[in-house]
């Protein structure tokens, strides 16, 4: 895999350990929560890249998972429910030299924030979206989410679910994400590898991390995730969208969860296209405003 590094990563490389990227904010998650694995994986990936935390912006929405930025030593925004995507887009377009990381949950991303997801993918916004997918609303104490399996009884579905779950991976493949990967959050080694590669990918990277909620989801436990996850075969062609979709479909039919790098391609990012547009019109900060005002003379 030929990782294309962000240009700024060369400029602002530092040598730090994973713990150097962690704040001392008090713990927020329950014991046994899968999100600890996501945090560990992320911190490891940051250290491996050697990213300068001053050039890192971690954006989140609302939910248990969206508290993650408080534990990361970087610039960060804890925004509104469902809005991490467009807020992060604003950060990235305003300052393409920054590394932008979204961390958030399945309800935040695919329910209330669902309207934004297709546009992050199709516009190829240069950022990574780490979905901490526990198939349940945890912060409000156990309601079904768009990725909940109907077998699960929740406080709002006491007689069982009545909806089919959404598949975040198929969704992202369909809408044009240029890097799509999946892992069990408990597999910190794989998770951190996929996060690292996703951060180094130039374009919109989506990493789905299956993360158990021991408090409110009693059917998707760490063990069931672990048992269902199956690493894609070595000969999986991640550059082929058709092969990626087929692999996901086949795994689903076999009641398995495909993990590893599922799909990766390259095309110009939104900020690159905008920079090109500015270049094409000869734009620059010191362009004389009077030339624009003159156009309004009668």
């Amino acid at each position, binding site marked *: 895999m030929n990782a294309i590094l962000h240009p700024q990563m060369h400029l602002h490389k530092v040598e730090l350990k994973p713990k150097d990227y962690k704040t001392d*904010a008090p713990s927020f998650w329950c014991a046994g929560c899968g999100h600890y694995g996501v945090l560990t994986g992320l911190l490891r990936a940051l250290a491996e890249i050697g990213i300068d*935390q*001053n*050039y890192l*912006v971690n*954006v989140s929405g609302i939910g248990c998972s969206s508290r993650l*930025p*408080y534990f990361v*030593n*970087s*610039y*960060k*925004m*804890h*925004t*509104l429910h469902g*809005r991490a*995507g*467009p*807020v*992060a*887009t*604003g*950060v*990235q*377009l*305003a*300052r393409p*030299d*920054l590394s932008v990381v979204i961390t958030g949950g399945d309800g935040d991303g695919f329910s209330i924030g669902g*309207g*934004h997801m*297709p*546009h992050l993918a199709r516009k190829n916004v240069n950022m990574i979206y780490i979905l901490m997918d526990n198939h349940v609303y945890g912060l409000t104490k156990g309601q079904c989410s768009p990725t909940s399996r109907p077998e699960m009884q929740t406080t709002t579905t006491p007689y069982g679910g009545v909806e089919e779950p959404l598949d975040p991976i198929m969704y992202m493949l369909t809408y044009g994400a240029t890097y799509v990967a999946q892992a069990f959050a408990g597999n910190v080694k794989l998770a951190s590898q996929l996060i690292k590669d996703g951060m180094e990918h130039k374009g919109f990277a989506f990493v789905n991390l299956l993360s158990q909620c021991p408090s409110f989801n009693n059917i998707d436990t760490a063990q069931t995730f672990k048992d269902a996850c199956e690493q894609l075969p070595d000969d999986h062609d991640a550059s082929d969208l058709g092969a990626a979709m087929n692999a996901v479909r086949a795994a689903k039919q076999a009641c398995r969860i495909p993990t590893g790098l599922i799909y990766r391609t390259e095309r110009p990012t*939104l900020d690159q296209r*905008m920079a090109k*547009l*500015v270049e094409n*019109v*000869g*734009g*620059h*900060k010191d*362009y004389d*405003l*009077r*030339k*624009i*005002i003159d156009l*309004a*003379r*009668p």
Partner: protein
Amino acid sequence: MQGKPKNDLIIRIGGEGGEGVISVGDFITQACAHAGLDVYTFKTFPAEIKGGYAMYQVRASTERLYNQGDTFDVLCAFNGEAYNMNRASLRPGTTIVYDSPGDFDPDIPEGVHAYPIPMTQTAKDMHNPRAKNMVAMGALSVLFNIPVESLRKVLTAKFSRKGEDVVKGNLEALERGRELAAALKKTDPWTIGAPKASQDVIVMSGNNAIGLGALIAGLDFFSAYPITPATEVAIYVAKHLPKRGGTLIQAEDEIASISQVLGASYAGKKAMTSTSGPGLSLMSEMLGMAFMAELPCVVVDVQRGGPSTGLPTKHEQSDLFLAIHGGHGDAGRIVLSVENVQDCIDLTVVAFNLAEKYQCPVLLLSDGSLAFSTQNVPYPDPGNYKLVERERWNGEGEYHRYVMTKSGISPMTDPGVPGGAHIATGLEHSEVGLPSYTSANHEAMQAKRFRKLKTVIDDVAPVEVDGDGTADLGVIAWGSTIGVVREALQRLRAEGYKVSGFYPKLLNPLPAQQFEDFGATCKRLLLPEVNFQGQLAHFVRAETSLRPESYTICGGMPFTPEMIVKKVREILA
């Protein structure tokens, strides 16, 4: 219209959308401004895209113009529909120029001057049927003394891109129209006065002027979602911002727009969005976050008829409640409103300056008729505008984003600054940004955020008082209604009434003391506004001791000076 000087001319051009009605209006406007006249235009168009009645009204005068006027003096009807739509306004003394032979046979009311011009026929005879509007414009130029040299110049400039043949064809049609009119005997008194010496002006619509104001203010980032009647702000910015190296993105909805704006603002950029009422409703939650996380942003609301989808292309001033209080929790924001095109430039700059200084959302209210009204303003020299940048951390000591200060303003840092890493959060937070829900902290933080707004009133020009001394009646107005009131008061004073006006541009925080001072000079107060509930009157009653009489209309059209004059006469009778 009564007593209106004959050289203050209002021409209304009406016809089928696509017949060139808008072009004729634009040409006349440009030519008059080019020649040194004051211009003020008014347009209405259907909400639907294809066909339908289109209307463009140009007011031109040697004197300063403040509004679109009461009604037209001259109607130029391209077809029967335009005639029928306006027949009721053809009062004695008005003039009609119409297509004859055309698709209608007008029954000219008694006392109305009429000039039949074979617009369609002449254009057809010249093998240039699309030049019907040029024939009409040529006739109008002779009949009402529209500066023809300027007309030829703007016409040539406009069509030169399409090639010499197109320029020539249109100029010929213009001349033919002039010949046709010259052969008629002029019976009406209407004529545009001799222009002042040509002045250094630009001519812009309210929407474009907001875009220009933003560029002058140093706009870096604009996110927009299309919505009538605000779309033109984004269109203007989309065209010109890339020249300045800035970024415009069209978002998937208004929630995304304001979210992107806040992201860009956090990243250190001057950012804005523009919308209309429905979009502002969607932005309400994020505006609360902007206040909580103390992020500068400018949001323009070009108001339209509401509620709900309402009357998308019609005029209303009905988003004041939403602008000031829309959203949950106790959130503050600065709200400005604009009177005219000049304000659209100047107050947009002020909006950015206030957003940067106070690190909070600033809303700028425009309205449907100002959005599309083109007016001449003196050439704005960008060097004459004072620009404000947010206060940034000096790098000394440990950085606390929300540090308590006397003014309530805490320095910001941009990502990339070593030692400045911090969180912008919508959760109630401590000085360092960590979640904190203690009573003491929430009360202290709310006090800090609202303390910032206390000095806003000092940063905005004092409210303009129109008149001096005491008055039998004072008129308070906001938005484009101000221009209507200005002219109404002039007429009333000419009739001997003692009246004065009060024209606030900063509506939140309300400059209450200035209201009180004005109120003390008036025996009675009137507050005309284009909404059903009397929204500004509500705030004035809530925040001052004044009890203005509310005069509200909500018919989708602005007030006219005559309506205000009548109302005042009634009150003071």
